């Protein structure tokens, strides 16, 4: 036995030494116009009028009429547009120099066909309220289209700028004039063409040599499927993969330690976008039998969570502390809200005043014979959520709240959210470009936050205000409405903010022009180039 142990030890030592003493060799990036990025999942069905496809891949291939930028809505496939006095008619003047990847000309007819294909599958686009407001789309002349709405809808241009569904696929790819039952090809107008796709292995995008805004300098982008984060890290060290980013799929495919290691080795650079979304705990105010339905309890939880420590120790500073549902760089969200900083004493005081008392022999508070116990659900595939859950469990114990943790699949958590079967769960806002309108609209949706917001006093009135924000033409009024809505959910402490997330890019050191869009789901690859 002794001999065996000694042998084993010797072997382990040998492996370690062998691993340590050979020199690190990272392949030089010989191809200075090629990017290979790691993705956890396949790009899937690239039909831009449906949702299974990778948004970052669709963003390279397809384009919308207008673009959402930091300075507001800018022209893209539409050179200019006019909005009628009453706000229900949008006339778009299209660019005349655009062709689809299959050579087909981009014109008013193609726009009309694409819009109609989307509208014919309206049920699938219920999230984008515009789909419900479109009355008709007409060709005025070859390069002019007129979009008519049933009523005024202020986020129209913002929603037209989104990655999907109002983007354009060559009509030659349609099946029987439709796209809802699949398409015959994936020809967009974007800066990159999809030239090869091996399911669950890789997808190749090549620069569109006829791109209307100038040929991209990066000639080839390969999306390589690497399901395991450890392999991604090793493949990047070797140089087989030279690009990684938090995309819409697996989020953090490489952990923070791995990223730091790559950057320190000197071959890679790390770029982070500004704050893009808010990670939060949603408290179910509508579940009357749960302590979470009580405002005081929700507020106490908010005070009891040390967000500074979470940001510093769990995210190593990669995510910043969030103080409200939306960070102030989100439209309409720059409103003054009550500050609730980490304050254990305050949390205890609130609970005490609300009648939740603690007896000397027990560590959990009670009121009327009911214990202060709740369940927190987290995504079992997210190591950071698990770490946060455990940390929060400890903090809440200190104030006398017993938190039970449940890790589940993301589909199961979405299901709990839809049925209201939870006390607390982890979630995040939809992100820039979708905030605040899509996230706020989700307050009224059964599948999203209806249960969470049901417990707000006079909830019906509250939901009416949300409806009004979307349909009023009075910008001042909308501002006030949003202020009111955001104040209400903040005061009610329904969305307990934790951190602000961002898009992280790990790229070769000599890659320049890395920038971000107004959405966390896409990257402007066409602006990147090697030095």
């Amino acid at each position, binding site marked *: 036995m002794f001999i065996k142990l000694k042998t084993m030890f010797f072997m382990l030592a040998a492996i370690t030494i062998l691993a340590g003493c050979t020199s690190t060799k990272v392949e030089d990036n010989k191809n200075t116009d090629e990017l290979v990025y790691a993705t956890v999942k396949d790009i899937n069905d690239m*039909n831009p009028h449906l949702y299974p496809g990778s948004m970052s891949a669709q963003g390279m291939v397809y384009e919308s009429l207008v673009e959402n930028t930091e300075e507001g809505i800018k022209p893209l496939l539409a050179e200019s547009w006019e909005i009628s006095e009453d706000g229900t008619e949008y006339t778009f003047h299209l660019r005349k120099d655009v062709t689809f990847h299959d050579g087909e000309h981009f014109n008013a007819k193609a726009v009309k066909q694409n819009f109609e294909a989307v509208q014919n599958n309206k*049920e699938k686009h219920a999230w984008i309220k515009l789909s419900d407001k479109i009355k008709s789309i007409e060709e005025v002349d070859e390069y002019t289209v007129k979009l008519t709405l049933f009523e005024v809808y202020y986020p129209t241009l913002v929603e037209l700028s989104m990655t999907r569904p109002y983007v354009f696929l060559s009509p030659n790819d349609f099946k029987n004039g439709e796209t809802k039952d699949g398409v015959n090809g994936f020809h967009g107008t974007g800066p990159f063409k999809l030239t090869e796709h091996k399911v669950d292995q890789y997808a190749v995008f090549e620069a569109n040599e006829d791109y209307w805004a100038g040929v991209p300098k990066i000639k080839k982008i390969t999306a390589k499927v*690497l399901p395991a984060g450890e392999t991604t890290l090793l493949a990047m060290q070797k140089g087989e993969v030279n690009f990684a980013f938090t995309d819409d799929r697996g989020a953090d495919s490489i952990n923070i330690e791995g990223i730091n290691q790559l950057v320190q080795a000197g071959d890679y650079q790390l770029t982070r976008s500004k704050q893009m979304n808010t990670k939060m705990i949603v408290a179910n105010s509508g579940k009357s039998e749960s302590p979470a339905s009580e405002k005081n309890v929700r507020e106490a939880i908010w005070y009891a969570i040390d967000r500074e420590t979470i940001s510093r120790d769990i995210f190593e500073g990669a995510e910043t502390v969030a103080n409200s549902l939306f960070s102030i760089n989100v439209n309409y969200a720059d409103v003054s809200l009550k500050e609730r900083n980490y304050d254990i004493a305050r949390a205890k005081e609130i609970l005490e005043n609300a009648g939740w008392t603690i007896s000397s022999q027990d560590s959990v508070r009670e009121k009327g014979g009911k214990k202060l116990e709740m369940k927190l659900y987290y995504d079992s595939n997210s190591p950071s959520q698990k770490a946060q859950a455990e940390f929060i469990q400890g903090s809440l114990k200190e104030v006398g709240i017993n938190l039970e943790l449940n890790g589940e*699949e993301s589909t199961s958590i979405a*299901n709990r959210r839809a049925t209201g079967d939870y006390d607390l769960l982890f979630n995040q806002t939809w992100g820039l470009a979708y905030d605040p309108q899509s996230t706020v609209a989700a307050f009224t*949706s059964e*599948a999203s936050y209806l249960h969470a917001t049901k417990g707000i006093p006079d909830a019906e009135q509250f939901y009416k205000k949300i409806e009004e924000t979307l349909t009023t033409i009075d910008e001042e009024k909308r501002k006030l409405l949003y202020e009111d809505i955001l104040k209400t959910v903040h005061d009610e402490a329904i969305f307990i903010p934790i951190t602000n997330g961002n898009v992280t890019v790990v790229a070769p050191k000599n890659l320049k022009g890395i920038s971000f869009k107004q959405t966390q789901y896409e990257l402007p690859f066409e602006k990147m180039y090697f030095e």
Partner: protein
Amino acid sequence: MGAYIARRILITLPLLLAVSFLTFLLISFSPVEPAEVILRAQEVPLITDELIERTNEELGLDKPFIIQYFHWLISSLQLDFGNSYVKNEPVWNLVGPAFINTFKLTVASTIVIIIFSVLIGVICAVNERKMVDRWMRTILFVFTATPSYLLGAVCIYLFSVKLDLLPTSGMEGVESYILPVLVTSLGYIGIYFRNIRSAMINNLNEDYVLYGRASGLSEYTITWHILRNSLQVAVSIFCMAIPLILGGTVVIENVFAWPGLGSLSIGAILNRDFPIIQAYVLIVAVAFVIFNMISDILNAMLNPRIRNDS
């Protein structure tokens, strides 16, 4: 012998029916509405009641369970397994290539496993309790006990990153087989060589060995005879290794980004991509039944007693 094989094949059919029915039944126990799960897997951002209704109608999910099963059964008998809910492609276009990829990995690994298990088993048996035997057992014990994701990562680190000899992952040529096959095999060799070793050691004490030695046969010839007798034990084990590896490559495929059945099935299970789950379960069930049969037949051929008994 022919009757024996025919009987085994006949038993297979009801078994497959039972397996497919059970899978159907288990999935139908899921408390979540299937249409909703499918739509969520298609990443539809907002699911409304109308959409659920429409999806139910389109996929026939509103029909009673037993009718759904018969529909599936009838079309699958015509080799139509439907479309994947998530990828919107015929199931065979996805499961077929994935199966072939995993099968290639399985066959390569099985060959390596057989060669090395027998080789190491013989070496250890002949040198029982000597230094070589102890070393071999220790080393292989360590490999078998190491989780394959760790072993995989260490191998990639050593052979791909540090020594720059092999690709880290993917399936792009002969060299990309080396690491996955190595990691798959190491775990199994450590188990199977012990079967060979102990069978040989048992045989060493048999009378025929003593007679052989007494009549002056060379050690080489004696070892050969022992090995032949010991292999009978191993045949069924090796046969069952194939379906075991086929159904158990999830971790390896994940680490090496191998586009096989394991990764496909895990994704399908998480998304409740029902047509793919059904096809996957059937394939693995068929593989188990077939290889179990082959192993029985081989044993019957090698050992007439089994044939006569049955």
